[in-house]
């Protein structure tokens, strides 16, 4: 298996293996994309490649606020929650990685607890709290829980990144008379930027992917996000299942993310594995 020389047979073996892995990963996605291009009649035909192609499903979803508004909500809520979570998490991760203060292990334990938290356990109480505070069905009503669940992820990923930074530079800045805060902003923050970008990507993906909070804490398209909105699509008539439009919406919210993931894959892999493996 770990042979140093490669025979043509091994090469062929790996070729087949690679092909199987790639096919397994991509076929379900290609199926969804293919569905999104099928006409309502072609949807009722199980062939993998559409017998009749159409852009109609995309036209339909993009011409109704039932999808466009949730898409805007998804983007806006995701970006705001990500920014807030990354800023707060960077501050905490810096403190964890660099400063001596009591209660550090309590903070780590708390973040760990939340990372493991079953979200459904929060939905019932949060639903009631949000109703009484007027946060139900608003952007902040989703942003706040997203920030809270983005924080543990951010704190782990960022403290792992922060440990790799050459901290002698900070000391040098302090010797030159910088306060700890100045040392953070002027010297360390620029070095930490790559880790922060990675963390932002992971947190944004988590927000974009969320479904449970999105269907629990919203009731109209004014704050419903795209994954939750698909539930409420209607067919071209009330007797048709909106398979095509749903497939189009699913492709529409997936393709940009896949492109994004592929573009940043190095960072994402580094971020996913940083917190989890002991070095």
């Amino acid at each position: 298996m770990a042979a140093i020389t490669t025979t043509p047979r091994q090469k062929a073996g790996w070729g087949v293996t690679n092909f199987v892995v790639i096919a397994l990963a991509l076929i379900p996605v290609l199926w969804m994309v293919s569905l999104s291009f099928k006409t309502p009649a072609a949807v009722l035909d199980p062939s993998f490649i559409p017998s009749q192609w159409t852009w109609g499903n995309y036209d339909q979803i993009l011409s109704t606020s039932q999808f466009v508004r949730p898409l805007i909500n998804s983007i806006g809520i995701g970006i705001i929650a990500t920014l807030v979570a990354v800023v707060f998490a960077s501050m905490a991760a810096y403190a964890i990685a660099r400063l001596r203060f009591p209660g550090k292990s309590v903070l780590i334990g708390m973040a760990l607890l939340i990372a493991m938290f079953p979200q459904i356990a929060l939905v019932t109480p949060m639903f009631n709290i949000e109703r009484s505070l007027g946060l139900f069905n608003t952007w902040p009503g989703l942003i706040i829980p997203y920030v809270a669940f983005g924080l543990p992820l951010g704190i782990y990923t960022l403290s792992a990144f922060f440990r790799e930074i050459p901290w002698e530079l900070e000391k040098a800045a302090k010797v030159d008379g910088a306060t700890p805060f100045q040392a953070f902003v002027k010297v360390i923050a620029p070095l930490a930027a790559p880790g922060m970008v990675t963390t932002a990507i992971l947190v944004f993906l988590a927000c974009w992917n969320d479904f449970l909070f999105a269907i629990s804490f919203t009731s109209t398209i004014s704050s419903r996000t795209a994954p939750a909105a698909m539930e409420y699509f209607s067919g071209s008539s009330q007797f048709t299942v909106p398979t095509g439009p749903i497939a189009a919406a699913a492709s529409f919210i997936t393709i940009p993310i896949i492109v994004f993931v592929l573009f940043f894959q190095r960072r994402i892999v580094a971020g996913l594995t940083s917190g989890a493996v002991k070095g």
Partner: protein
Amino acid sequence: MSTSTQVAAGAEAAKQTTGRRKKAPLSEGARAERRLGFLLCAPAVIVMLAVAGYPLVYAIFLSFERYNLELPQDIKFVGFSNYAAVLSSPYWWQALKVTVIITVFSVSISLVLGMLLAMVMHRTIFGRGIVRTAALVPYGIVTVAAAYGWEYAWTPSQGYLSAAFNNSAPLTNEVQAIIVIIIAEIWKTTPFMGLLLLAGLSLVPDDLQRAAMVDGATGWQRFTKITLPLMKPAILVALLFRTLDSFRIFDNIFILTDGANNTGSVSILGYDNLFNALNLGIGSTISILIFICVAIIAFIFIRGFGTAAPGTNTGTR
């Protein structure tokens, strides 16, 4: 006020400060560092307490109350009777059974497949980039979007998978629907598993493998005697993450079956009790029970298997 008391007060104060000094000799810099530490952590702590801590306490409180949103005037402390009601209900045990089955199968199969994927990504001679890129696709996809894809694929006379399996309708049958749910989970989570394991795999020194090969160890021996033991910490962390994640499965079931035909997980049950039965008391009780289950799983992993809790390695570098 006499001078003696003032002196005594002063001495007391002096004693206090010296006492504190003795406990923790804090220089001006150390104190500033401490203050900065608290300040920097404050926003994160406040948000986490407000969104997870307080609601959890509130859920415990609600779980002891009769609280139905349809009968807002009939809110009353009822002790453990909600717990008695849930724990004696067949719905809870059915949901727990389904959740455990899905967790055990999806996590163990995705561990094996993830291990294979990690080996492929680690060892493949060519096309490593393409394989890794393709593997990230299921990770990046929105779970709900993928779930719709699976649903339509298994819909009779519409889906390619249903067509391939004799036009079957697996989502209308309990056992088959659970298998479909498990497949959807495995497809979505194996890449994550594979990437975590790949990181662990790259920590296994090649020299060790080569030495074992020189000593005549077979590929399987090298895998079980060298690779697996060295990867144990990475495997356990990946397993812990995946198990807890799988135990709270919601999205895939919600889209694929919505809990029909006894396929609902505990999360689906909690959701239904809140939004369909509008029962905050029972809903909170289910929430607390799920929380306890998750705590037990984490405890077993961390204490029983010696999984390193992520984050505890802080400062080792």
